[in-house]
């Protein structure tokens, strides 16, 4: 800890967003990176706790106090090396991670937590700027071949780790480009795709082979896969969206958020797509679902020129600060106002969608009712109850369903492989991440269920260890 009283000298300062009027008119990242000096000042706030709760609650166990200290001391290269040791994609998590670390920062108990995520971002961007990060292909190869199927954060982390362990890795991706939801799910204004390309470029140079546009199980048979590779890791994500099966669902103008976002992302990147275009331009947009994906829809809709954007959530409005139900250092459900919300959206909570109303086969509005959760069931869980007389309607001609994912897509490869699933429909593995099929592993959302990027990275890394242990027999 460089400055023992840093936390008393400096207040928490986060990155500045560009002005709303400026940023809604483009897809560039909404924030301005901090200066190194500012980052140093913020790192000085880290208390280097004897029990670093941040490190404890970080799924990849980022060694936060140590790299904060290096940043404070200006030893950026070492900070990078330390960060790189636990996280394969800090430039991604540094941008989009909801940062459980910050919620468990000791300083957060009675003060504002350290800007851990942004410090992470500063470190990795500094490393790119100064060339600390460069391709470092393994000197020898084990001769073992591993296929990674799916190029989201889990697959990429797994591939990167296996490659470091000197195995030959091929990453298969059914989309045209590498990155999974990082590329097609997260809008550029939050994560510019050049960030992803920059990293993939390094990995290519380190010897990872990327095969895009190959849908394993469809374009590439699974027995060929098992024949050609010593092991395979399934990291196809949890892509089966949760649907809202209420009357009117078949009306036009109702889309899953991911359909909308991935198309928008393709548009921004000038990537071709076959489906009919979905655009918010001039439309009254309703986003159903109050989470991060919903927020991404809001931001994208505004950029596309929506006439208005409404976001509704069935759960009540979360508190703006911790309450008894989620004491420090647990990850709390708090009211989060993202950059997208700042750009304009009406948000409503405790709203249950009853049915979609439309004519000419197109949706025009949604019938809603307010709900309350004051009563609890036998297990103490709150029960939803409609508030009588509170029915109302929202006009909307583009409705985006951002209410999460159920489990991985079972059709295709998973069914062909006959892997076993857990009760929630996710791929079941043993402690080494091996599925019920020998040589086949799984990690990330496909294994864990819908989760955070940082969890996907963590799973991918852990699976790599399992695979290595399997291949090298130790």
């Amino acid at each position, binding site marked *: 800890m460089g400055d023992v009283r840093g936390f008393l000298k400096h207040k928490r300062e986060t990155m500045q967003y560009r002005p709303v009027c400026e940023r809604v008119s483009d897809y560039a990242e909404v924030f301005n990176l901090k200066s190194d000096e500012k980052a140093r000042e913020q790192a000085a706030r880290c208390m280097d706790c004897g*029990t670093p709760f941040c490190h404890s609650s970080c799924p990849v166990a980022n060694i936060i106090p140590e790299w904060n200290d290096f940043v404070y001391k200006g030893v950026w290269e070492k900070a990078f090396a330390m960060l790189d040791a636990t996280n394969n994609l800090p430039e991604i998590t540094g941008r989009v991670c909801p940062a459980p670390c910050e919620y468990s920062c000791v300083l957060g108990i009675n003060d504002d937590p350290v800007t851990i995520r942004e410090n992470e971002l500063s470190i990795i961007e500094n490393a790119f700027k100064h060339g600390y990060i460069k391709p470092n292909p393994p000197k020898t190869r084990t001769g073992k071949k591993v296929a990674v199927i799916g190029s989201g954060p889990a697959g990429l982390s797994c591939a990167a780790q296996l490659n470091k362990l000197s195995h030959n890795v091929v990453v298969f991706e059914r989309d045209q480009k590498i990155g999974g939801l990082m590329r097609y799910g997260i809008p550029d204004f939050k994560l510019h795709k050049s960030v992803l390309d920059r990293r993939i470029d390094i990995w290519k140079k380190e010897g990872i082979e990327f095969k895009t546009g190959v849908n394993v199980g469809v374009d590439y048979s699974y027995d060929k896969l098992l024949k050609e590779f010593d092991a395979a890791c399934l990291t196809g994500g949890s892509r089966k969206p949760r649907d809202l099966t209420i009357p009117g669902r078949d009306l036009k103008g109702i889309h899953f958020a991911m359909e909308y976002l991935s198309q928008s992302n393709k548009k921004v990147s000038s990537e071709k797509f076959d489906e009919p275009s979905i655009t918010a331009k001039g439309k009254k947009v309703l986003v159903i679902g109050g989470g991060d994906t919903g927020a991404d829809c809001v931001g994208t809709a505004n950029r596309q020129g929506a006439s208005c954007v409404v976001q509704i959530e069935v759960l009540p409005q979360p508190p703006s600060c911790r309450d008894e139900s989620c004491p420090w*250092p647990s990850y709390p459900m708090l009211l989060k106002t993202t950059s997208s919300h700042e750009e304009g959206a009406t948000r409503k909570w405790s709203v249950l969608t009853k049915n979609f109303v439309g004519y000419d086969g197109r949706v025009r509005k949604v019938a809603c009712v307010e709900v309350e959760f004051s009563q609890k069931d036998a297990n103490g869980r709150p029960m939803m109850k409609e508030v009588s007389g509170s029915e109302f309607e929202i006009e909307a001609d583009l409705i985006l369903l951002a209410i999460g994912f159920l489990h991985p897509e079972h059709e295709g490869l998973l069914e062909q492989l006959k892997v076993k699933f857990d009760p929630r429909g996710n791929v079941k593995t043993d402690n080494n991440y091996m599925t019920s099929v020998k040589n086949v592993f799984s990690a990330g959302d496909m294994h864990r269920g819908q989760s955070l990027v940082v969890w996907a990275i963590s799973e991918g890394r852990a699976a790599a260890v399992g695979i290595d242990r399997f291949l090298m027999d130790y």
Partner: protein
Amino acid sequence: MFLISNGVSNKQGLYDPQFEHDSCGVGFVVDVKGKKSNNIVSAGLEVLERLTHRGAVGADPKTGDGAGILIQIPHEFFKKVAKESKISLPNQGEYGTGLVFLPQDELERKFCKDEFEKFIKQEGQTLLGWRSVPVDSSVIGETARETEPVIEQVFIGNCCHRGDAINRVPTVTNAPTVNDDMAFERKLYLIRRQVENAIKSSSIKQKSCFYVTNLSCRTFSYKGLLMPYQVKAFFLDLQDKDVKSCLALVHSRYSTNTFPTWDLSQPFRFLAHNGEINTLRGNVNWMKAKEGLLQSELFGDDIEKIKSIIVPGGSDSAMLDNVLEMISLSGKSLPHTLMMLIPPAWEHNDLMDQKVRDFYEYHACFMEPWDGPAAIAVTDGTRIGALLDRNGLRPARYIITKKGFVVMASEMGVLDIDPSDIEVSGRLEPGKIFFIDTEEGRIIDDNEIKNTVAGSKPYGKWLKDNLADIDGLSPNEGGIAQSRLHSGDNILSTLKAFGYTREDFKVIINSMAETGKEPIGSMGNDTPLALLSQKPQLLYNYFKQLFAQVTNPPIDPIREEIVMSLQTYIGSQKNMLSETESHCHKLKVKHPILKDEDLNKIKNINENGFKTKTISTLFKVSPDEGGIPQSRLHLTDGFTQAIDKICHDAEFAIDEGFSFIILSDRGFNKEKAALPALVAIGAVHQHLVSKFKRTQIGVILESAEPREVHHFGLLFGYGADCINPYLVYASIVDLIDKKEIKLDKDKAIFNYIDAVEHGILKILSKMGISTLNSYRGAQIFEALGIADDVIEKCFTGTTSRIGGAGFDIIAKETILRHKSAFEGELSTSLFLATGGVYQWKKDGETHLWNPQSISTLQHATRTGDYNKYKEFAGLINDQSKSPVTLRSLLKFKDAKTISIDAVESEKLIYKRLATGAMSFGSISRAAHETLAFAMNKLGGRSNTGEGGEDPSRFTPLPNGDSARSAIKQVASGRFGVTTNYLINADEIQIKIAQGAKPGEGGQLPGHKVSAIIAKTRYTTLGVTLISPPPHHDIYSIEDLAQLIYDLKNTNPQARISVKLVSEIGVGTVAAGVAKGHADMILISGGDGGTGASPISSIKHAGAYWELGISETHQTLVLNNLRGRVRLQTDGQMRTGRDIAIAALLGAEEYGFCTAALIVMGCVMLRHCHLNNCSLGVATQDELLSQRFMGRVDEVINYFGFVVRELRGIMAELGFRTMDEMIGRTEFLELNSSILPWKAKDIDFSKILYKPKMPASVATRCVIVQDHNIDKVLDRELIKLAKPALEKSQVVKEELEIKNVNRTTGAMLSGEVCKRYGESGLPTDTINFKFKGVSGQSFGAFLARGVTFELSGLANDYVGKGMSGGKIIIYPDPKVTYKAENNIMMGNTTFYGAIAGEAYIRGVAGERFCIRNSGVNAVVEGVGDHGCEYMTGGHVVILGKTGRNFGAGMSGGVAYVYDEDKTFNKMCNMEMIELEELSKEDLTVIRDMLHNHFRYTKSSVAKRIVDDFGAESKKFLKVMPKEYKRILKQMEEPKKTGEVSDG
């Protein structure tokens, strides 16, 4: 019957008699002119009796720990009584005699006597006969009687005076003839040693009761397991007026044990000792090593007969006596022998005569000091003398009368002497010898003795010609500083192979290189013991540092650095009995942590005939090579073979004439791993010791492994002469190259070495050891988790109580580490392992306090959810996945359960709970008070910790809540320990040690001393406060008894507790404490938390409470002392299960600390030492304190949960009350299913041992201690002071006082404070004038309004803790000596005094006004360490001072009358400045002198005041630097304040 021979006192369970300590009262009387009389003998016995309070009694009130008297042979008397036994005695000097303790069994007795006779004959002497010594057994205690031997007296005729006998029995051919007293004395010695050896190796049952008190033609001793008053009554001889002697040496023993040991009573053959030899194990080993070289012209071949010189099984004093006897009989004079064995602190003493320093340096080349607190009285029958060790930690006062009579004793007043007859009242000074030669009929002063001895040989020239200094060696070829690894070596993999972690750098190495200091940490230890850790551990981690507590004092290595030395003399030693110039043919090394260039000098040495051989400590590690399967057995073979090889090589190097060997692990690579350096050093050292060759060669270690202070401490402690930690140097250079350390290379390495060396001094000092020479090989460690075969080979004699890792496991750990260096290509391998020892990390070491356990506990106590607490308790109690604590390996046996309703109530159990001693200073005020409120509500006890308590907290709030801490702690700093504080206690706790840093002092840096802290500590805002390592009034067990007595007198209602820390031997210490009348003993575990400690102490000093409490419980039960005292334990207690285990192991009460802090918000930042706690718990920062969010009800919730869990366990085990649980180890067993791989052989049998004792022996506290305060003088004083106490009327009385009147004034003062509180009475309301010699602690805790005047002499601890009173001391009007040249009072006076005045006409001993907070005192001279640690008050000294004046003095002012301008040489200038006097100063001095004269009629004061203009110029002002700065600062705002007010 002899209990000993029944085996009752033998080693059993955790009790081991080798850890017994003793300490004592010692004294002598002598007629300087050598006139023999019975008066001297009676005077000796009188002295002995009056020292009774310095001895102790055990469970049996009539059995003492031993007492005795040594006199000249009373020839006249013996002639008479021998005749009665039909023995005809020759002339005086022509026969030798001595008491012989013989077996009660007749046959065995005969056997012993026959053996005796056999050796008398063999040595050519004549047995004149045996006399049965008349004793009166009815006067002694029951226990003593049970073990009483048959006592006879043997008479042996000197054959050289009987011409016919001389050649009758030819003995060994080369035996020198017996032709003088000394020769005969040697013969008697030979006879005695041979008989002793013969009986010892015989098969008789009662051999342990065979003992020869003394066999001499000069001296004779009567002693036994007696109390002082019983000596004369028991030995009827002593009642005979014909028993005459010109000298008498007496001794009264206070032992920590009560097992009957007739033979350990003193005096021994030559000496009587008060104190303790701390370096004993090293001394014994080195003596053994020296035996190989022993030769003496006088003994000739007979020398073989007396081996081994040191008789095993003796006490430290007995062993010292063995060596002293052998050396002096081999021809060296007594003073010479004493100077050789117990040298003063000559190393840094520029004031010492060069000739004398040369003597000491010469002898340092082959004799390591017997170090430890020692006042030794010694006599050969014509000469008698006394010597004080270099620290002067034992009191020794003497009086010389005009009639040529001298009495020397641990205290004054032991003999009534007419004041007008006193010529000199003196004291023995540290390192000085007081010597009387009755043949010459004079007292020979220290200077003369030392000069005579030092002048006997040209030591200076010899040193000049022979002793090489490493600094003077030229760097030869190849002597270029390396400080980098050889090219090709990868520093990262080398670091990994030696187990370096990132933390080692971040926390330890960088910090040491940058600051030159050992790093500080906080909050204790919650990681596994090495044996249980899942991570490979360095062998060092299996050892715990030992430390001094109670029986001897630790030293302050910073403030008392003058006594410390690391100077080392390496090379081959010569026969210690001869003196030649080649004895100092050695290499002198000032800094035993060798830089690379120094090591190179030694490697390439080619001067003076020195030669160096390097021995590699590497061994092959590719067990798979050649298809040999990897197996534990195989690994062990390679490893142990390597050990054998280096031992062999080392021995061979000696035979080849090498002077030094370097054990080196350089050249390490993938195939070759290094033996753990400690194994290499230990094995070689032990091997060479066992071959009697160790002293013939210097053993130097060149290793990549050591980096922490603890590592170096161990390596030296197990025999290394010098160490070169080359990898640390290389790493530092690497870090400098990478700009991570921004320092010059030399500076950084210097800093690192400096930090290590200071750390080593700290480790030494913790044991009370002053020099590395005597620490080396002293093995002051306990092994925890090491198997016996490893101990046997490498660490012989070290205690290892739970068994553990053998060579196979140590080898495996080494290889695992080694392999990790060369495996794995992942990018994570770019880094060293995380460590996670000082900071929790996911991939680091296990911590019991981790994010999960901390947050779960906080959640539980905040919500009051017991289920959540159970979740927490589960996290702590079930450590099966990664065991941390010893207790986690235990499980409860199945038992008959009872209903929870049958279990005693929570309320009753709360009474047994306490929160730990955390000072207001270490934790914030709000945190401190929250604990107090909570504990008071529950009915438990909170603890003030060191540092006082705001008196406003003594009064409860209107709603009944109280912030008053029930336990008031008294620690070495005595901060805030006022009389009023003491009387507001339910319990007064003497903190001897604390778990996090036992044996060390503390320091509250100035920036933490806020206004409120300064107020509660009665000091000045912003001024650093130092707590010394020892209580300066507790240097031994009888001193502790005295402090207990002081405190009990002050507040008779409070129970007195003593806080000890678990370590091997704590049980015997506790037995001593129980005998010193403590009501409760707290055994703290070494893991305990703290505000700030050196991290090596947090980790490596102090054992676990499980060991400490069970050892203590077992020892007390075995001694039948358990019933007198309650036991408490603490140190990382967390759950109800912890309490249950503590109870079953023997504790009645339980302390919680860290857990309570966590409940109040602490999340283990471990920043307490930075004053930076962001939770407001452990900080004094005003802003941060406001962040504190702890709540009383949450603390109450916590203890409620703990007790609820505990009651559940009680019900399960079928205990209705806690009392039923105490010491019931049969309900516990080892849970062997969860043992980690390394710990498969762990052994809990000693911990779970239950001594088999008769039902009458209590196994928990059942009676109240008798403090013997019913008849103290204060009871009378209180009666006399009634008008003052009741109506504030002035009282004036005169009384007689004697040395047995101890702690006079304390109880009276307690009464004053009870009625009048802190402010007491108006000055001079109660006036007592005493006449005579006061006992210890005269005027202790004297309250405001009480004035004590003493006409006569005073002993130690005058004015201790004085809280506003006034003390006036002057000589009896009848005396003719000059008071200003004589000692008027003893050592450690006005210790921790808060306020008041003192006027002492005459000189005070050592440590005058130590830690004085505010007393204004005048004195006419002081001994060493004057005004040490003083923080306030004014002191005027009208005469000379001793050395080290003002050490650690952070506040207050001293004015010293420096007539001959020598004072500056006496000062320790670290914290003070000497200044000229200002006008204000002159006024202060003048006023004080005026008073001094008025009260004492001091002629010195008068002379100065009469000519104040001129005389005042001779004063120097001693001003602490920081104090000056603060005073100035305080003035400044006042000035600006005035301006703004205007």
